[in-house]
């Protein structure tokens, strides 16, 4: 199976170790990976802040870029949600029939990481070893837009050595919300404070998620507060083995 990796703009810039983990993980599972070096961004930041005009060109570019890809894997549920939920409206507004056709044909081939593992590869046990106490934060896009459901839990359940701690109030937003985190920084921080209480109460060593955006926000506060806890993208847990333990994010 061949898959093209859409790393996302912020993973490329801020969390390359997540990308490296995705590569290690998928190749271990026998997937032949490609990486189109022309990729940049899906346009979510612009679309969500109200800069729709700017988002048009980014959407068009992304769809065209992956036209010929057999499969696209994305280690970020918010970017996949952007493509599934907002691209139709943007493309319709552009009135480009050819683009719409390309988009419609592309989308069934686009997978968020956990979707790819569970639905496409059909695996829950990816051969991972991560001997730590871990709690899982269900980011809103993954939870509601992608309806990832049990997938992340199934994957974590098969990680050897991992002690899973259920996060209370798991469906409550962490407060990141993209540019909301700076436009409404105080409310974002208040939501973060409340969420952090829940995360720390689990007694886990690591908080994981399928989105580095939420983890950047949670982890940033943990670091500021010397909270004694770290964040790590799930790809890094799943890529972790005895021989090649995970690179920690923090």
């Amino acid at each position, binding site marked *: 199976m061949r898959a093209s990796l859409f790393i996302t703009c912020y993973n490329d810039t801020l969390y390359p170790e997540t990308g490296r983990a995705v590569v*290690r993980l998928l190749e271990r599972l026998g997937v032949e990976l490609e990486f189109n070096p022309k990729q940049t961004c899906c346009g979510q930041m*612009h679309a969500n802040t109200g800069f729709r005009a700017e988002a048009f*060109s980014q959407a068009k570019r992304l769809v065209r870029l992956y036209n010929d890809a057999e499969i696209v894997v994305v280690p970020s549920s918010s970017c996949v949600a952007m493509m599934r939920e907002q691209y139709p409206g943007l493309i319709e507004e552009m009135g480009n029939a050819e683009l719409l056709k390309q988009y419609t044909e592309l989308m069934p081939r686009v997978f968020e990481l956990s979707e790819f593992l569970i639905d496409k590869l059909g695996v829950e046990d990816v051969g991972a070893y991560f001997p730590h106490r871990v709690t899982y934060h269900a980011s*809103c896009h993954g939870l509601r837009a992608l309806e990832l459901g049990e997938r992340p839990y199934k994957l974590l359940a098969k990680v050897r050595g991992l002690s899973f701690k259920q996060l209370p109030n798991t469906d409550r937003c962490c407060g990141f*919300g993209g540019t909301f985190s700076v436009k409404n920084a105080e409310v974002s921080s208040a939501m973060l404070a409340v969420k952090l209480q829940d995360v720390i109460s689990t007694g886990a060593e690591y908080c994981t998620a399928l989105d580095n955006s939420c983890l950047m926000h949670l*982890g*940033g506060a943990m670091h500021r507060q010397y909270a004694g806890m770290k964040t790590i993208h799930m790809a890094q847990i799943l890529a972790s083995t005895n021989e090649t333990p995970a690179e920690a994010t923090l």
Partner: protein
Amino acid sequence: MSHAAISTHAELDPRLAPPFPKAVLPVLRNPQLRKNVAHAIDVIQAKRAKLVAEKSDWQDLRTAASELRMHALENLGAYLEEFEVRCTAAGGTVHWAADAEEARRIILGLLRQENASEVIKIKTMTSGEIQLNPFLEANGVNAFETDLAEIILQLGELEPSHIVVPALHVNRSQVREIFARRMGRPELSDDPKELTNAARTFLRQKFLSIPTAISGANFLIAETGAVGVVESEGNGRMCLTLPKTMITLAGIEKVLPRFQDLEVTLQLLGRSATGERMNPYTSIWTGVKPGDGPQKFHVVLLDNGRSSILARKTERQTLKCIRCAACMNTCPVYRQTGGHAYGSVYPGPIGAILTPQLMQMKHAQTLPYASSLCGACYEVCPVKINIPQVLLELRSQVVNQERKEAGRIFDPMYLGLRAANLLFARAWIFHTAQWFGKVGLKLFTGKDGWIHWLPSMGGRWTQTRDLRGLPDENFHQWWAKQRGQNKRKEAK
């Protein structure tokens, strides 16, 4: 006992309210208020969740309600005209108010016709929307609220912070203090039962003596010309049974095609609003009934921007709202801020989309940004309003407005996003920008590899969060190095 000193509580006015990011600051620093809000929300949410879980056709009801409400909106003119014909035939008088100012004038005119210097009111947010109480006061009419929460707010000169439980931010000792002072009952304890009884006694005298009442409407039925009010306390029944003259103010979007349609909305409303299978009292009346209730009945239909909302394809769904407040009960932003910060009688997620639109996007432009787009509201909305979708649409309208302003080119957010767009257009520009970013941020990166302070907009992040410094090698650089020559890395 003198009641002359009762004044109306301050009305939340979107034209005067501070921007949301500023309005939240005093609230976020108030632990008592945040605790009250969280407690109230948790109670209602738990009750709601239990009842929704037991209703196996909940999603079917939501679908039916959403389609029904949209159908009513798509045929609004026809259904309103049908309502008018039937209501009039039943002895009611229907008035049409294009805006808030006209609605106020009409209502005052009707009160003057009855020589009314006092009026009792059933809670209606629509009257808050049109700033009715201060207007009546200024024109010599005392408006007495009769809902317990509204009495608390009115006597205490406070502002509402929630649609269904407006005084949730006021605790029992505060209520005791207000009642003791304003009802002349210094002996009252802070026991909620005793306080409620005090309100019962205080209000009964008003119900029995004031012959004019003002209400809102939860729904208007086109088929029969009926009006419906849903309530818990019984003050609604008092106001619409005992007086001689009844004035109902209703937004034009409240109309349902047929009486039978209540079988959908009534199943959703109680469960969503208060976590009950059905609220204690629902009253339905049609025009005037000789010998039973008010003999003069007026309906004031209010547009005030609704028909403009109706015209916009994505935003039209805003008008499906049945005012249950489930959205704000589930909203993680509202949970921390309460309702006042939204500066409108409509707070929370629905307020964030309705208020700016009612203001024709001239005010409350920070409200569409008062959301992390988590989508919890959409999940619980009984009529399936895709609030995040409308928020995004309104954001782009705000940006399009703001773009035209001269000073905006210097706004860091605009600069940043405009720049970002350019650099995402080509990979080489993006990569160059990444390099500059990495180098630039090194200035702020500590020895531990973390950034603790940033200027300008970045400083909004670093107020409460650290940021890890940019790695020396980003992903695409790593890939190029590892894979550039089609070298296959041994999988372990």
